[in-house]
């Protein structure tokens, strides 16, 4: 910019003709546009969250109608809770299993469907269809299929395999809940990956092929970096989602056998609603919130390390 230009600009800024300059008008429009979301966040997110923190400092007996301040007692209980180790282990296993399986399967399906094949639309529809089935209906059906004498073992039997009693073994129960959830929702991530894959310019692959790069190298050096923003988005959504899985566990295992599928959100539900320890439930809510927030923040921080052309 020239000196003259600077001076003109200075003068314009020095004597605003009226209060509503363009930046100010812009800001007003900005505030107006975000106001519904902001008001909603304040009313339906922040305020209830504040109330939950407040409840976590109380001993609240719903039936007797007593509500008394106990300070950090619920937090002390949390630290001393003998179930906490098992619950956190189940939660970690469940979330890691779910996220890894979901993202890997979504990517594999997307790559398969990205091939120049006839009928990919048909398969895409099939893989996506569970997304549309009501979650409760989906879980009820799987409850049948996963029985000792259910459909899954029927299919396995036809293939000559003697299937386990899925929902009664500690490992298989956890695995079952993960798989039921992945099959239900992997279609969404698959479609997002598919879109990202289709956005990768074909010339890049051709050039790399000329340079003698194999399929695996091309995948690692071209595909992954170029679709990394999508990987980031899907992994954030999937991680957060994996910590909120509830209805499936309620219907399929009720946290069992043992406590193998009692993940944090289900334990929270049990404590607060079934056992009526609302104060302690609120404390677990605070813990859950902190874990989700920390994980999301971590992913966001780490994105610069591996996400390509992050602006």
């Amino acid at each position: 910019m020239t000196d003259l230009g600077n001076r003109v600009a200075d003068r314009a800024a020095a004597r605003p003709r009226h209060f509503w300059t363009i930046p100010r008008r812009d800001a007003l429009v900005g505030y107006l546009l975000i106001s519904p979301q902001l008001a909603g966040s304040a009313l339906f997110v922040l305020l209830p969250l504040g109330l939950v923190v407040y409840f976590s400092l109380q001993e609240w007996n719903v039936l007797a109608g007593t509500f008394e301040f106990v300070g950090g007692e619920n937090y002390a209980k949390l630290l001393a809770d003998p179930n906490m180790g098992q619950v956190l282990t189940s939660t970690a296993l469940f979330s890691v299993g779910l996220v890894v399986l979901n993202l890997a399967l979504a990517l594999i399906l997307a790559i398969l469907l990205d091939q120049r094949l006839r009928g990919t639309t048909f398969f895409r529809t099939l893989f996506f269809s569970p997304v549309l089935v009501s979650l409760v209906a989906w879980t009820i059906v799987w409850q049948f299929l996963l029985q000792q004498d259910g459909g899954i073992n029927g299919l396995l039997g036809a293939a000559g395999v003697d299937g386990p009693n899925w929902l009664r073994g500690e490992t298989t129960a956890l695995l079952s809940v993960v798989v039921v959830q992945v099959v239900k929702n992997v279609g969404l991530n698959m479609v997002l990956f598919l879109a990202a894959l289709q956005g990768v310019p074909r010339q890049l692959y051709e050039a790399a092929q000329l340079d003698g790069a194999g399929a695996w190298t091309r995948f690692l050096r071209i595909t992954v970096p170029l679709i990394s923003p999508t990987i980031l988005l899907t992994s954030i959504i999937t991680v957060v989602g994996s910590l909120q899985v509830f209805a499936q566990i309620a219907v399929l295992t009720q946290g069992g056998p043992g406590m193998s599928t009692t993940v944090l959100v289900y334990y929270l539900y049990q404590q607060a609603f079934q056992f009526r320890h609302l104060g302690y439930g609120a404390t677990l809510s605070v813990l859950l919130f902190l874990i989700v927030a920390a994980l999301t923040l971590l992913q966001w921080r780490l994105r610069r390390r591996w996400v390509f052309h992050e602006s």
Partner: protein
Amino acid sequence: MKAPLAALALAALLTVTACGGGEAPAAQGPQPLRMSIWTSNEAHLKLFKEIAAEYRKSHPQVGEITFDPIPFENYTTTLTTQIAGGNAPDLAWILENSAPDFVGSGALVPLKSKVENAAELVPAATRLWERDGELYAYPFSTSPFGVFVNTDLVKAAGQKAPRELIKAGQWDWEHANEINKAVAAKGKNGLTILNFDYKAWDNLATVWQGWGAKAWSDDGGTCQFNAPEMVEAMTFMHKAIFTDKSMPGPGTAVDFFSGDTAMAVAQISRAAMLKDATFKWDLVPLPAGPKGEYAVIGQAGIGVLKKSPRAAQAADFLAYFTNSANSAKLAAYFPPARTSLLTADTMAKTSPLLNGDQLQKVVIDGIEKGVVKPSHKGQAELAQTARAALDPLWKPDADVKAVLDGVCAKIQPLLGG
């Protein structure tokens, strides 16, 4: 959308300032009443509404009376959430497993002086709902457990019908097990305990009671899962499940009413499900155990919540809802606890599917000498904890005594507290 938003903002302020939910101000005009229930059966609802309409004719100060069905599976949970949110119903059905919590916490209004002719209620049926000599809920459904038998399947397996065994004085768990073993050997299911599903272990009381076993001591303070009687009873069940295969194993859905199962331990109200049964069936008392004959009952009560601003009116309606005349009507679906109704003749009118002998032996005797399924203060947490600790038992190579010791180790802290 603006009006509700403003109202909500106001409500939010209210919530913050007066936590726990405000009481509704005393309003003028006819006052509505609301009863939380877990059935959404049309016939049940129709009967309740008829009784309510009749009541309102003589009580113009009462507004509409609504019956709120909450899904059975989440009943107590949803009810307490509503109470926590400040939306307690005026009256609520209460399951036997949460009775000690509701009765013990002081959440309910005392009813003894309100209930018509409370003296004729069977003591076995009211014990659960009493504290310090006062009655806190009316036991409107007292449903004994019996054994439904698919006599076609038993015959096909070449076995004697349970009724014949009863005549011969041989109707005990050993003999029952032999029948079921034979049926299972033919590829059908032997005996199932309805609703147990290897989770709701309190239903196993229908078996272990025959061994004289108990989940905990009568004062509720000591775990008895590892007492010798319980170990024996559980060993019997474990052998039945995994060695004899006479009880379908864990992870198998069984439906007695579709006809593939020889016997089902269930509450007698399930007879209604057999209206269109395509097989011959019978209802017999629970088999005798090593400690002789016994009976077990499941219960449901109706209580009036103290939190209700119309508690007095609600108690008055409850008295009307459960008076002798209406109890007789309710008896069509819910076995009554009033001695005047507990005769084979009166019962026969309301339970057309059962014959006189079945009614006398299973229903009437059952209600009079029955033991209620185990329940304790903090039952939900106890139930979950014991369920998790019992899970290792449902494996072929389980060490019964060790697992039951483990159950006691887990639940004793909850009992002692």
